[in-house]
């Protein structure tokens, strides 16, 4: 052993040494990386997907991957937020909005060769509805519970009552889904990745391995962790998930039903957690694109010839106020003072990526129900000071929570934004106590359980319905806002069950005006997360919902 070790070492050393030298000379790395090679498109993701079965997912990284292999009944227009046909070219509902009928496309084949029929659609929905055991855990079935409520047999009182009733297939290509009561979640909900249609064969296979009964573990079923079983209808099919290297590989599906096949043979999502690492990977030519580009890098990348298309906005960043923490905060004048104190335009100008706008209300202007005539609060420190004085809250002290080590699509650099807001607040004589918390999980928990006076948070819409924004916050009392305002609460619970879209929009506008008058918090901005691509690719249409379809990508 005393001899063996050094010898082994020596050889390895030699290898390394040669490595250094050779890689020194071999600058051919550059060209073989500058795209064009072997039709492989590599995209840098910020995190690993949770699973490759979209039905089990709830986060963007998962959906970004599955979206390439799975399709939903309804889809969004490329680069927009309007609902358009997906696997169903047409859809409609009865007046009550309790029966939703979908006219399916013809000749849609799954990756495993199965045909798409109404039956298959029903199989999918019934599968979700009949989920039991671990599947009923929010981790695995968040969206189902959010959109269709509970299951055939709820196993925990924390699971909501089911709103899904059933699904019939009157003919080959017509599926009708019945729900108990109408909801603002329909039809938008049908466009969610979570409700992508799987192949019947796959569904049978899924049934085989059921993660439930694993004791105290929340386990993702095996099929959702490795390629092979899952099968959708998308332009790509998942061919490999190498967890060690953090790479999901998809390859072009040649029998894709859509008119155009994918532009590249192979699509790889590689996980690169660190922001600067992602950028440098792109610059070094190791990847061909990545999302959530830091605003500061945009110009640099553009100068270096990289393509940085600008998305539409579909998110909102706000400063939440938890009123019940301090009597002063329950005084609307004080809240108005805060609103006037904040120089939101400055943040948009200096911090947020191009295309960002200062927000006037809790939804971006791209969402139906956006009201032009809400009460607005200009940047006006003097006024703010007056208001504070009137309210007798000159020496107000605020505990200001902000998240660390995170960037969100709506909030590129939380710490910086906090710094600016804090400066503004202090400018009008408010004392600010900083309370930074790591995004996961401290920040989530603290803000949700009402742990701070004011805090930064935001939301990216799932689909184009204002309820998807407002509903999540104001349809009842929550600790994270800590106020009672029945006018607003009622308005929203009313709108939730309003079947008619047009009526809903009117009500949303009303709601927005009411909210901005009551001012539960200060909407700050809507800003598009930047996405960057290497110079040699033809871009996909960028989407405000960050739902890029990489089938559109090809090398120049």
């Amino acid at each position, binding site marked *: 052993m005393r001899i063996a070790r050094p010898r082994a070492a020596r050889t390895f050393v030699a290898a390394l040494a040669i490595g250094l030298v050779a890689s020194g000379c071999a600058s051919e790395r550059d060209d073989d990386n500058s795209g064009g090679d072997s039709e492989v498109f590599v995209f840098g993701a910020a995190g690993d997907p949770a699973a490759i079965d979209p039905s089990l997912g709830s986060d963007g990284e998962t959906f970004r991957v599955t979206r390439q292999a799975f399709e939903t009944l309804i889809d969004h227009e490329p680069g927009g937020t309007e609902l358009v046909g997906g696997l169903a070219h047409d859809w409609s509902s009865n007046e009550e909005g309790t029966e939703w009928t979908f006219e399916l496309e013809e000749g849609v084949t799954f990756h495993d060769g199965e045909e798409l029929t109404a039956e298959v659609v029903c199989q999918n929905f019934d599968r979700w509805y009949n989920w039991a055991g671990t599947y009923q855990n929010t981790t695995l079935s968040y969206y189902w519970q959010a959109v269709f409520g509970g299951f055939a047999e709820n196993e925990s009182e924390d699971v909501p009552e089911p709103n899904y009733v059933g699904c019939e297939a009157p003919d080959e290509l017509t599926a009708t889904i019945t729900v108990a009561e109408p909801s603002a979640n329909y039809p938008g909900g049908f466009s969610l990745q979570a409700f992508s249609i799987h192949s019947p064969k796959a569904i049978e296979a899924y049934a085989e391995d059921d993660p439930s009964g694993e004791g105290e573990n929340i386990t993702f079923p095996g099929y959702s962790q490795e390629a092979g079983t899952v099968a959708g209808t998308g332009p790509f099919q998942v061919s490999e998930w190498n967890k060690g290297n953090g790479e999901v590989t998809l390859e072009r599906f040649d029998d894709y039903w859509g008119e155009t096949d994918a532009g590249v043979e192979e699509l790889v999502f590689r996980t690169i957690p660190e922001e*600067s690492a992602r950028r440098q990977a792109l610059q070094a030519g190791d990847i061909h694109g990545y999302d959530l580009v830091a605003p500061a890098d945009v*110009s640099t990348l553009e100068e270096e010839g990289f393509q940085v298309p600008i998305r539409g906005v579909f998110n909102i960043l706000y400063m939440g106020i938890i009123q019940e923490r301090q009597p002063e905060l329950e005084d609307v004048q004080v809240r108005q003072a805060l609103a006037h104190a904040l120089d939101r335009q*400055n943040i948009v100008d200096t911090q947020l990526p*191009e295309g960002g706008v200062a927000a006037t209300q809790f939804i971006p202007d791209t969402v139906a129900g956006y009201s032009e005539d809400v009460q607005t609060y200009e940047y006006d420190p003097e006024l703010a000071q007056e208001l504070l004085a009137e309210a007798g809250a000159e020496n107000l002290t605020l505990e200001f929570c902000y998240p660390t080590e995170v960037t969100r699509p709506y909030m590129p650099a939380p710490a910086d934004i906090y710094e*600016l807001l804090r400066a503004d607040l202090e400018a009008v004589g408010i004392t600010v106590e*900083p309370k*930074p*918390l*790591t995004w996961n999980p401290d920040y989530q928990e603290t803000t949700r359980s009402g742990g701070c006076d004011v805090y930064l948070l935001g939301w990216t819409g799932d689909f184009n319905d204002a309820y998807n924004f407002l509903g999540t916050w104001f349809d009842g009392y929550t600790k994270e806002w800590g106020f009672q305002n029945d006018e607003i609460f009622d308005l929203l619970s009313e709108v939730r069950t309003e079947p008619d879209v047009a009526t809903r929009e009117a009500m949303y506008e009303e709601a927005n005006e009411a909210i901005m008058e009551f001012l539960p918090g200060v909407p700050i901005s809507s800003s598009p997360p930047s996405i960057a691509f290497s110079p040699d690719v033809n871009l996909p249409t960028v989407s405000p919902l960050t739902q890029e379809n990489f089938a559109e990508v090809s090398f120049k």
Partner: protein
Amino acid sequence: MSTKTDKIDRLAALTAQRETTTGGSLWVEAFRRLRSSKMALIGVAIMALFVVIALIGPWIAPHNPTSQLWRDEVFTNRGEFVGPRGENWLGLDHLGRDQLSRMLVGARQTLLVGVISTVLGFVVGALIGGVSGAALAFGGRAGQRLDTVLMRFIDMMLAMPSLLLAVSIAAVMGQSLTTVMIAVGVVQVPIFARLLRGSMLSQANADYVLAARALGVRRRRVVMGHVLPNSLGPVIVQSTLALATAIIEAAALSYLGLGNPDAAQPEWGVMLAQAERFFDEAPFMAICPALGIIVTALGFTLLGESMREALDPKLRS
């Protein structure tokens, strides 16, 4: 007669004028060697500079380090930063604050974190190490057991990667400057403990200790009066090195988003962590604090190293 005395005086004078070349205590010796070591000189110079800045920084800072005086001149979203210029010698940071002022004021924070956390690690570590060392050396059976328990505990701490330990501490205690100090300090504990214990044991077997004990000097006396003072050398040296590590670990914590919560209060670690994002657009922003940290840490390390060497009797030239 007179000649006699004369002789004696003359002789006495001669003998006296010839000072001994050997002699001088360990420390005097060490100091003598230290003076002549290039490394030590560099180290001391750096350290002195740093301390001075830390002390007077706030007064010589040209601007208020926390107020965003030029915030409408910096556009991070367009990658437009303000580099060094007449008004701001080191340019502005990403929120339009004067970089130079932040560096100057930041030095104090940095030093504070370094010193306090090191002291913490030193005290706790020395306590554990001292107790178990003394126990093992003079505590008989019971002492041995105590020592075993303590050392096992130390082993556990050693076995856990220091950074993870620090991170988890920061997580448990929530973010604050104190947390950073504690997190960084705790990581040092096992090192100090092991070191002190080790050198105490070696001292405990030294002849003079045996002699003292043979003379029936009380154990406490022996430990406190002889063993401990003589064992402190390496521990003290370690603390200089620890100071360097502390500053860096603190930076790492800030980088992981667990640093000083009040990001407005300049501290080099935090500054570096924040500026790193803009390295391509505004390298100067990262380089200032980076150099600050690196040079300071190097200063302490060099000093520590040369002290270690100077104190090491085996390495006398």
